């Protein structure tokens, strides 16, 4: 029937996750960093679904659901924060926002 091994999905997830990490670390634009985080979350979703299918277990789906909820909430609040910061500082570049040190 299905000929795609489960570890294909897992490796795809790993690649996407790694790409997300690279994005978070290298990008200066807070919005793009946010998008990279979404990428990482989706990589995790993919992994969950792969396992769910492999183990024939519905809990993976539930988890993906919860992650989506969290992601939605996070995006809403996060973007609001970015907007607030932008109003105050007129920039969304994270290297301009570095007062929280020492």
């Amino acid at each position, binding site marked *: 029937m299905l000929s795609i091994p489960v570890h294909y999905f897992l490796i795809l997830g790993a690649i996407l996750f790694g790409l997300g990490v690279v994005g978070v*670390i290298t990008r*200066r634009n807070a919005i793009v960093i946010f998008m990279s985080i979404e990428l990482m979350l989706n990589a995790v979703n993919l992994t969950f679904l792969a396992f769910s299918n492999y183990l024939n277990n519905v809990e993976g789906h539930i988890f993906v*659901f919860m992650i989506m909820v969290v992601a939605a909430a996070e995006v809403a609040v996060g973007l609001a924060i970015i907007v607030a910061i932008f109003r105050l500082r007129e920039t969304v570049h994270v290297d301009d926002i570095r007062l929280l040190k020492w």
Partner: protein
Amino acid sequence: MALESILFWLFAMLAVGGGVGVVVHPNPVKSALFLVVTFFALAGEYVLLMAHFVAIVHIAVYAGAIMVLFLFVIMLLNVQEESRLAGVWGFMRYFSVVLFVALFVQLGYFGYQGFFGAENVPLVRETEIGTVEQIGTALFSQYVLPFEIASILLLTAMIGALYLSKQKLGLGEPARAARVKEALHEKEEAH
């Protein structure tokens, strides 16, 4: 090669390509569009995993709602293309590649070692797990409490976002916001 395999590789390449685009493209708007591509590709992978319901929700929530939100904010803030800084940022770029490789090796090793040669499971089974009915039953019986909490979380996020977006910045009257702004500038100059 079976149709599933072709579809898998197609979607996988689209997803990875989209991901790379998100990460490397200097223009945030285009990054966002690349992300949309990735989302659609991932939805395809979900379908391959027989998670039809999740796939649909994924399209609706991510590509439909979240991405619109992203684009909206980008447009609202009128963000320019980002220019790279020398020095630290150059180093970070190479360093991130190292991190990527390390992470990929570990996660890939985990997936490969754990599941290589594992018995493939049939995609179509007698008990379907990805159906709306299945998920609905689970959500409203066993997982009803997390489900309700999730709704509260969303509500909270909504209120929080509203509060933050108000003109007052949650810091009191506008004059005070100006004062804070001034103080921040001063502090920055001190650095």
